[in-house]
């Protein structure tokens, strides 16, 4: 699986959305991306890329695109 696929799958699985919908998501706008969904998403990303995210990055993760930027800090290129 490519990083891009892994990244998309994490969103689809954690927030229970269609793959086509995932790239448009932002925190709070989508019903499933509330605080509970957020923690599920963080766990899914950490598992998928075998990383431990810092608090500052966890709270900064506010959209599909923002997440890609954050993962770069952990040497993950999407």
């Amino acid at each position, binding site marked *: 699986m490519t990083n891009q696929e892994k990244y998309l799958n994490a969103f689809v699985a954690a927030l229970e959305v269609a793959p086509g919908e995932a790239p448009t998501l932002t*925190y709070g706008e989508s019903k499933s991306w509330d605080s509970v969904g957020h923690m599920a998403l963080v766990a899914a990303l950490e598992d998928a890329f075998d990383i431990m995210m810092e608090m500052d990055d966890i709270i900064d993760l506010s959209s599909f695109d923002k997440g890609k930027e954050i993962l770069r800090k952990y040497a993950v290129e999407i």
Partner: protein
Amino acid sequence: MLWKFERHQSNIAVEDEYGRQLTYAELRHEGRMLCQQADGRCLVFCLCRNVMGSFVGYVSFLNGGVVPAMLPADMDAELFRNLYETYRPKYIWAPESFSMEDGCCRYERFGYRLTQTPFGDVETRLAPELALLLTTSGSTGSPKLVRQSYRNIRANTDSIVQYLHLQADERPVTTLPMHYTYGLSILNTHLDVGATVLLTDKSVTQKEFWTFFRARGGTSFGGVPYTYEMLDRMRFTHMDLPALRTMTQAGGKLMPELHRKYAEWCQKTGRQFIVMYGQCEATARMAYLPWEMSLQKIGSVGVAIPGGTLELIDENGGAIQTPHTVGELRYRGENVTLGYAENAADLALPDERGGVLDTGDMAEFDEDGYYTIVGRKKRFLKMYGNRVNLDEIERMLKARFPDVECACAGSDDHLTLFATDAAALPEMRAWLAGKTGLNSSGISIKAVSEIPKNEAGKTLYKELDTNDD
């Protein structure tokens, strides 16, 4: 009048995340204008968010003798409709985006709108002591509301202010919603001492929350067990929050290892970690664990709040005298609410409890008189701090999916949905999440060959295995 705002005229009562502030004098003035429009004592449905309009509405109605029923702004439309038709409020106080086809706008302020409903001319009799209505379980839309009186709120406010030693220099941030009694108790007590409420609709998982909290010198916050689990996963204790002094916890039992972790961290950094216990039926609070004891009494909810008493009742109705003996927790105090309402006519009912509340929680006390909750008498769970009645969930599912045999069980924050029709389960789960607003990651599904029942047809919940496969 519940609060005497004139005592703190020039103090800032509230600051929101967009930089808007109101002094107590201004808040008082806003209240007068809003209540003038409501024109006398009546019932208002308040659709709550942690924003200025919602805050000003709650405070003004309560202080102005108008009775607010506090409901989540994102409540499912059908469940809202059901409550609306059951209680026939004279007004709705809601964000401007909330659409009301048959209403008439009376007033607008802070992005909120006071809409007069077609029920405006129906005379709803309200008991003179009735102050506030709260749902017992917001997510299932049960029409059962808790009736709180002015005296209830006053008594509970006094107790909490006393045991938390609250003063005007406090700056609590909103982490809990206004339709939730724990969230309201934080507003009630801090407004009583002239402190400044930091108002934000953001969650602890969002950067904007912490930026606001840090920039405005937040001194305290409250959290349900799930809040503390999230903070733990986020390695919260590494954060630099110099103004933070107090963290409180209620809304269900925190895992003992997390209780220890936060108690130790607070002790080490000169802060206070205070575990508390309460119910909407007791206004908010019944017990608290003094912070000095937080490490000695891990897992305990502590002792009764000032002015209240706790005791344990055995199966024969007698009071338990021996430590470590489980019984139902009974609370007595002036904060025990008037009772429930199931329809508009019930709003005229007098006090039905006489200051005594059988909590439905099973507990024990130790040799020092510290109480620990060990279970529940009734079938409900706390989902992210909110009470969810499992029988009501089953009823909702059976009404929507009449052909499927199903049952619900689980533990706090983990609801398991059982059904004999495996193919129907994913749809049932998605429907339930949408209806209740509970995040579906808290709902597991399990296909079973049959729902175990006894000869009388009652479901044998103990035979349902809620462990993950």
